[in-house]
């Protein structure tokens, strides 16, 4: 049998992109706004999400999708706040993909939710590549990780609409150059917003809450026809 060369030119992630698109259509039908929160492991995603839930849970109906390689530690923390949480254990895979989110959406009562916060697996590389169908992408970079990270992981800093510089309460102990960091981030992503915060002390959280109120809560009011 003769050998044939077939031109394919097909993106490997196109299947994931299609699934992400389907997720988006599905949440849009239910007027749900979804936000994808990414960072390295230990940058403070869960603490930030906890603070954000406490701030907004009386105003909007929230749910959380927790992505972890293993364990339910983060989901257990969130569940104490009395909101729905879905744990996805990826069993080694270093990111969430759109198919996993589809499975999570299956288990949530979408008609009773305004906002879904996805806490992605801690990773600065592939979480940026796998679309999930979220309306907004947000990332955290903690002070101890260093200000050079935009140079090492440019894709993540290009994709995120908001970059939170977390753990600023420990800044006196580290050589974190905020100006150099901001310059590098905005060099890659001119419209990217940078909020220095400490989710532990509460410092700087007002700016983040203001963005969340406007971009997320405001969007739910628009999609639900209340605005």
């Amino acid at each position, binding site marked *: 049998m003769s050998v044939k060369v*077939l031109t394919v030119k097909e*993106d490997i992630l196109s299947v994931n992109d299609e699934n992400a698109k389907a997720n988006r259509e599905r949440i849009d039908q239910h007027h749900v706004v979804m936000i994808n929160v990414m960072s390295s492991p230990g940058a403070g995603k869960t603490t930030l999400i906890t603070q954000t839930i406490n701030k907004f849970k009386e105003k909007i109906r929230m749910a959380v999708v927790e992505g972890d390689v293993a364990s339910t530690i983060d989901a257990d923390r969130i569940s104490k706040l009395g909101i*729905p949480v879905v744990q996805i254990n990826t*069993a080694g895979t270093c990111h969430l993909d759109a198919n996993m989110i589809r499975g999570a959406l299956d*288990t949530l009562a979408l008609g009773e939710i305004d906002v879904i916060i996805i806490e992605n697996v801690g990773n600065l590389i592939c979480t940026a590549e796998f679309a999930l169908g979220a309306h907004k992408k947000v990332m955290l970079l903690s002070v101890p990780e260093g200000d050079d990270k935009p140079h090492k992981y*440019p894709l993540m800093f290009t994709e995120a609409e908001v970059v939170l510089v977390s753990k600023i309460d420990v800044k006196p102990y580290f050589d974190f150059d905020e100006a150099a960091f901001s310059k590098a981030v905005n060099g890659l992503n001119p419209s990217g917003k940078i909020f220095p915060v400490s989710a532990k002390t509460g410092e700087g959280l007002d700016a983040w809450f203001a963005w969340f109120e406007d971009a997320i809560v405001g969007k739910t009011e628009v999609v639900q026809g209340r605005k």
Partner: protein
Amino acid sequence: MASGAGARFGAARNAPHGAFARRRRSQIGWFSMHEQSIVASLLSTALKNAAKEKASKILRICLVVGDLSGVEEEAVNFYFGFVSRNTIAAEANISYTHVPVELRCRKCEMIFRPEKYDLHCPNCQEQQVDIVAGRELYIDTIEVE
């Protein structure tokens, strides 16, 4: 809301945890990482295109990989060996064309390849850049019979 949420949490947490964990472990064991899901998509894309031509065997898959995609050849080859078993791609070789990262300076329009994680334009020293190459991850061609 609170009691309903609590009830949903219990069911929701357990269901996807078991389902996802079982599905993934059974496919490739415990060595899962970045390339696992990429290889699954790679295989399904190759098989779909081979089926269109009614091919009986896939001999080669020519993959284009940008340096920002974080894809390692060794890991792809390793997982491909697992997931392609019992398919017409089981004996396929994967060849790789790597695409280096290229940035375009928004000030002077120069396109350059950054060195040592330096995002400064070598022409005007500005640091305002768009990524124009290095994100690629696609099948260029497949050889079938």
